[in-house]
């Protein structure tokens, strides 16, 4: 009897410990193999010197340090993993683990902070910065601050809390081959009338004039904010417009810019591919449609290039035109596209040690100043760098087009960064309803104004 009791106890103990063992935290999905034996030819005495110059007082221990990077830009996951490996070659005692996250950054971050496994570096959207400001390191004394003009959007209440990773743009993408066949010159489209003209000409060749991507984040955060950007090129003025919406003093139904924007949307809807089933055009389908030449125009961001490349890698075939909201040359929306820093890296100080924070700062410096880091972001991930010292630029036509708009100064405020985190899911739904013809502009205006008045 005694033996059976002891055996029972032992078995239970084993079961219990295996159950608890299964609960051990294992949030990392990729580990970068340290390859310290590989001699690094250009351990880059320059980069070392730069590092020493930036943080002379911040010496890191010689113990191996592992930091984690939460990547919320799924299309550049492999490129970031390669960057982590390259960084590790130059800094053998620092390992960077890149964690992929689909869904919004906030969702993943909440779970990670709650389980005490917050990533050292997290990639956030503009609207998330305010919530996280108490948990992150102040980056105002970093060297790269003086090397970029995209710094205001990285601040919360005047404190610099984040690092701008990429600069992106949104506008009307055109398929050059389709336009050439229809005899349309994209550079001449700076008014509503010219746009409609172009659409009619394209339809005459048997191709749909445009395709509208139905995703709520696209319609809500990128498309529907265009009229607000018409105020001026300064972020402060656009913020005033949003503040007016919150206060209830701006009536959209009477606003010329807003009505002009909806008029253009009506025009695009008229020539939309699959206009009987507009909600079938999700992100992948709409990218495929324009890349394969089934439509002439698509309103989308520069991040869509990886999808385009899968079906049509002709790098001279695409570009951006502005989304015109009127026939008035004075409206800046008719000649410019929204451009701005879109992904922000923050360094956590609550659940990561000082050594990890220093290692993270090193990684950020490496991304800016080291040729390997610059290559990772610009050449491999095909993203535009926000830093002026970076001389290389991505080769894809969408990024080149955005760069030319930056060059000429014809840029609008990237207003998606200024909207609350649920702006796209609530209002994007309303615009989906509008695009599928199930609601009218007065109702949408009412929904927008109600949303802003209830936002905190």
């Amino acid at each position, binding site marked *: 009897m005694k033996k059976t009791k002891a055996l029972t106890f032992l078995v239970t103990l084993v079961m219990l410990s295996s159950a608890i063992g299964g609960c051990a935290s294992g949030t990392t999905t990729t580990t970068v193999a340290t390859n310290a034996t590989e001699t690094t030819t250009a351990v880059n005495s320059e980069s070392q010197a730069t590092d020493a110059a930036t943080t002379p007082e911040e010496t890191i221990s010689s113990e191996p340090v592992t930091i984690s990077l939460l990547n919320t830009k799924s299309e550049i996951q492999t490129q970031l993993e390669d960057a982590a490996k390259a960084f590790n070659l130059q800094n053998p005692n620092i390992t960077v683990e890149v964690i992929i996250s689909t869904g919004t950054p*906030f969702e993943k971050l909440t779970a990670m902070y709650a389980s005490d496994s917050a990533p050292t570096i997290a990639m956030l959207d503009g609207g998330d910065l305010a919530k996280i400001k108490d948990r992150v390191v102040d980056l105002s004394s970093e060297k790269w601050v003086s090397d970029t003009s995209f710094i205001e959007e990285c601040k919360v209440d005047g404190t610099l809390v984040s690092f701008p990773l990429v600069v992106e743009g949104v506008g009307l993408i055109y398929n050059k081959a389709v336009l050439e066949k229809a005899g349309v010159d994209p550079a001449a489209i700076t008014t509503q009338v010219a746009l409609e003209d172009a659409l009619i000409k394209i339809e005459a060749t048997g191709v749909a004039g445009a395709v509208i991507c139905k995703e709520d984040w696209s319609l809500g955060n990128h498309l529907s904010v265009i009229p607000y950007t018409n105020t001026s090129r300064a972020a402060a003025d656009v913020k005033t417009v949003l503040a007016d919406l919150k206060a209830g003093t701006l009536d959209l139904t009477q606003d010329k810019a807003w009505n002009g924007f909806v008029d253009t949307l009506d025009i695009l809807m008229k020539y939309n591919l699959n206009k009987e089933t507009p909600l*079938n055009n999700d992100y992948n389908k709409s990218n495929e449609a324009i890349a394969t030449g089934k439509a002439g125009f698509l309103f989308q961001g520069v991040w869509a290039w990886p999808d385009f490349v899968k079906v049509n890698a002709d790098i001279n075939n695409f570009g951006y035109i502005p989304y015109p909201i009127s026939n008035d040359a004075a409206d800046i929306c008719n000649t410019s596209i929204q451009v701005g820093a879109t992904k922000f890296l923050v360094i956590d100080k609550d659940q990561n040690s000082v050594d990890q924070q220093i290692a993270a700062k090193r990684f950020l410096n490496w991304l800016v100043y080291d040729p390997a880091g610059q290559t990772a972001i610009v050449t491999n991930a095909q993203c535009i760098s926000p830093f002026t010292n970076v001389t290389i630029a991505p080769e894809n036509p969408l990024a080149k087009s955005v760069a030319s708009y930056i060059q000429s100064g014809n840029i609008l405020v990237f207003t998606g960064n200024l909207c609350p985190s649920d702006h796209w899911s609530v209002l994007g739904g309303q615009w989906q309803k509008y695009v599928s013809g199930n609601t009218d502009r007065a109702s949408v205006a009412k929904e927008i104004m109600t949303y802003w008045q209830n936002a905190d």
Partner: protein
Amino acid sequence: MTIRLLLAFIGNGGRCPMKSKFNKDSFINQLIFTGPTIFIFSSVVLLSFVFGVYLTFTNWDGISASMSFVGMENYLAVMSDSKLWSSLILTIQYVFFTVTIANALAFFLAYALTTKLKGSNLVRAGFFIPNLIGGIIMGVLWNMIFNYVLVPFGMQMNWPIFQVSWVNDEKMALWALITVSVWQSMGYLMIIYVAGFMSVPKELLEAGSVDGANGFVKLKKIIMPLMVPSFVICLFISTKGGFMVYDVNKSLTAGGPYNSSELISYHIYQTAFMRQDFGKGQAEALLLFLIVMVVTLTQTSLMKKMEVEM
């Protein structure tokens, strides 16, 4: 003290432990067998529940380092949130249709498959397989079927009902969810009903035949009353599953089109994580818990009274 009583209560098969002598040996045995489960249950379920209730009185957004007490503000906001109540009504409709259709189909399938036909085991397995596919994959699969298979099919056959994809249509999105859930749960419920059918003693059925009862009368008077326990289980599982559904909702419609098919779990998730209003989300989750508890307890206690002893 309460844990000891609880253990002793369980150990005594639900009878009052005070009446029998407290046996130290058997108590240790009870502790060994139920202790780990109780420990895991308390730490994972109970503690989270208590913390959740605590959160309902704060205005935490899920990630800030600071939060402050706001008293009953979240509960008041929950009561006045019209979107929550419309989600709840939608969920009740969904539960009603899913439970009735799935159970009816499963029952008749089980009845048809309890004959000793040659292929009946294979057919049973075939109907059970949808249950093995996870909710997310099912939602993605059916999303593609609704969008890219049924729409061209409807265009070809000129059936207007399929010409607009169900998941993109306000009125049909709920039916898309119901269809997928019924398809998934039908097999599982069928298995339980099959087990119920098997447990009906053959002698009673034969006695009924001898007395001149035909198939339908046998079904109504003998099989149904003896299968009430199976009904209790199946109704409980399908009701609870229906109220708590999230994965199919997310992958099939994502609350769309334009937030018109947000069932209540989805709505709670959106409040907590999208609107970053954790306190209010928790309050809504607590409300859902109470509703499901009331519904399922009522259902099980009512049906237990219908159980027939042989």
